[in-house]
């Protein structure tokens, strides 16, 4: 299997007080090693559920999820996660927060090497000098950057980002997009990015998957052509406008606002 992540015919329901709630039905997805796939879809369609499946936090009712050829049936220590809520531990310094995964995952790094790596990652995202601050002393964007470092510290095979920039203002968000490109160049990872921002999806990812409304299936896949290093200017080219338009139409279909045939 050449793809690092393979999701095959996944179906999943949550048990709720009012009976089973089908969330995913017919989900297909694959991410090659080093690939970065963005997942977009209507609110509540099951995107976070998808990330929990890949992380092994949830086992699907039907279908299979493979990471590196191994069928996922329980959490394995080979993923890094970051959410919209940075969930940093307030009683730890930023450096100690970033080091947290190394206290759990068996690691080849010595304590000093781990710390060295944490400092390097923090510098990479522009948090040099904040190592000994507490999370409460940082802005939202800075917390999110620290949370990203924590997700990467143990060199996970898969980086899972669930709307990590969703709560940030537009300028901070664009700032972080560029930092993401820098991080990916220095610390290659295979990534799944959940987002509500179509511009974000085509700026960061090399493939965009549109999920249908709940229960979600893979509705549409857009490949973002590799045109070398991306800058924000790329978002204002006719090619970008065409991609955004296509995605917007697909989202409208997923939301059930227009019939599938009407897509441009």
């Amino acid at each position, binding site marked *: 299997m050449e793809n690092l992540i393979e999701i095959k015919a996944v179906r999943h329901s949550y048990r709720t007080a009012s009976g089973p709630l089908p969330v995913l039905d017919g989900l297909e997805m694959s991410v090659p090693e080093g690939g970065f796939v963005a997942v977009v879809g209507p609110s509540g369609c099951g995107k976070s559920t998808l990330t929990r499946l890949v*992380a092994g936090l949830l086992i699907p009712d039907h279908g299979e999820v493979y990471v590196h050829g191994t069928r996922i049936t329980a*959490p394995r220590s080979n993923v890094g996660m970051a*959410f919209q809520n940075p969930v940093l531990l307030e009683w730890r310094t930023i450096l100690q927060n970033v080091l947290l*995964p190394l206290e759990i995952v068996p690691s080849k790094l010595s304590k000093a090497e781990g710390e060295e790596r944490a400092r390097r990652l923090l510098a990479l995202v522009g948090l040099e000098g904040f190592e000994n601050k507490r999370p409460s002393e940082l802005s939202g964007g800075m917390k999110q950057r620290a949370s990203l470092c924590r997700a990467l510290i143990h060199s996970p095979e898969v980086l899972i980002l669930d709307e990590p920039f969703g709560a940030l203002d537009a300028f901070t968000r664009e700032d972080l997009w560029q930092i993401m490109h820098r991080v990916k160049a220095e610390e290659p990872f295979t990534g799944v990015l959940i987002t509500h921002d179509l511009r974000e999806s085509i700026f960061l990812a090399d493939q965009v998957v549109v999920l249908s409304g709940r229960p979600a299936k893979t509705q549409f896949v857009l490949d973002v052509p590799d045109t070398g290093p991306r800058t924000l200017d790329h978002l204002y080219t006719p090619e970008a406008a065409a991609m955004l338009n296509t995605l917007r139409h697909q989202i409208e279909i997923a939301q059930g606002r227009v019939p599938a045939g009407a897509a441009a």
Partner: protein
Amino acid sequence: MTGRQVYVPVLAVIVFLALWEALVWVMGWPNYKMASPSDLIPAYQKYWELFLVMGWQTLWRTVVGLLLAVVFGIALGMIMGFSRVMRDALYPLLVGFNAVPKATVVPIVALMFVGAHDFNTVLIAFMISFFPIAVSVSIGLSTLEPEYRDILRSLGASQATIFWKIALPKTLPEFFGALKVAVTLAFIGTNLMEIVSPHGRGLGALFDSGKTNSDYPLMFAVLIALAFLGIVLYYVVVALERIFAGWADRTA
């Protein structure tokens, strides 16, 4: 601790005592109606040895009861915090137990374990004070945002690791809030037992003997001594809170 944090409360106590003295003097109350601070000094002088011995008895039994309440309260809180079923099962029982006025339980316990005075007292102090601790820990654990759990679980961490690394430290501010309440409650428990059970020990018994002998300044002196012990224990908890949960203080 800055200088101000010491002298402001001390000043407040002095003002309070002065107002009390003035009130008794202005109203012309005899000391069997309301003793004034100046009446208390002779009482302390006369009985200082008793105050030391009895005060110590009250203190250690309260602290032991409190420690038991902490251990039991945390254990119960963990059970209820991690398991929905246990929470549903135990909550009504716990609330019912807490609603029973402890003054009615005291004579029952005193009869049940006649003569085991230390044991009785510790038991009541414990029974009255574990409730807020159990509730705070269970709420702290059950309201932990799922993302905190997911971060560690996705790394393959065990439930125990999640508890030690995240759930417990995150619950500490609530825990100490509850502990401050529990300290006061434990004192009430200890004294209830000391006053009610015959030939008792501790400051409660001293209060009772003041009552029997119509020594009103002594009774007031005991109340002030209790208040003093309560304050000391409360600030011990505050100091522990600073050490273990100082990060939660955002006033700085």
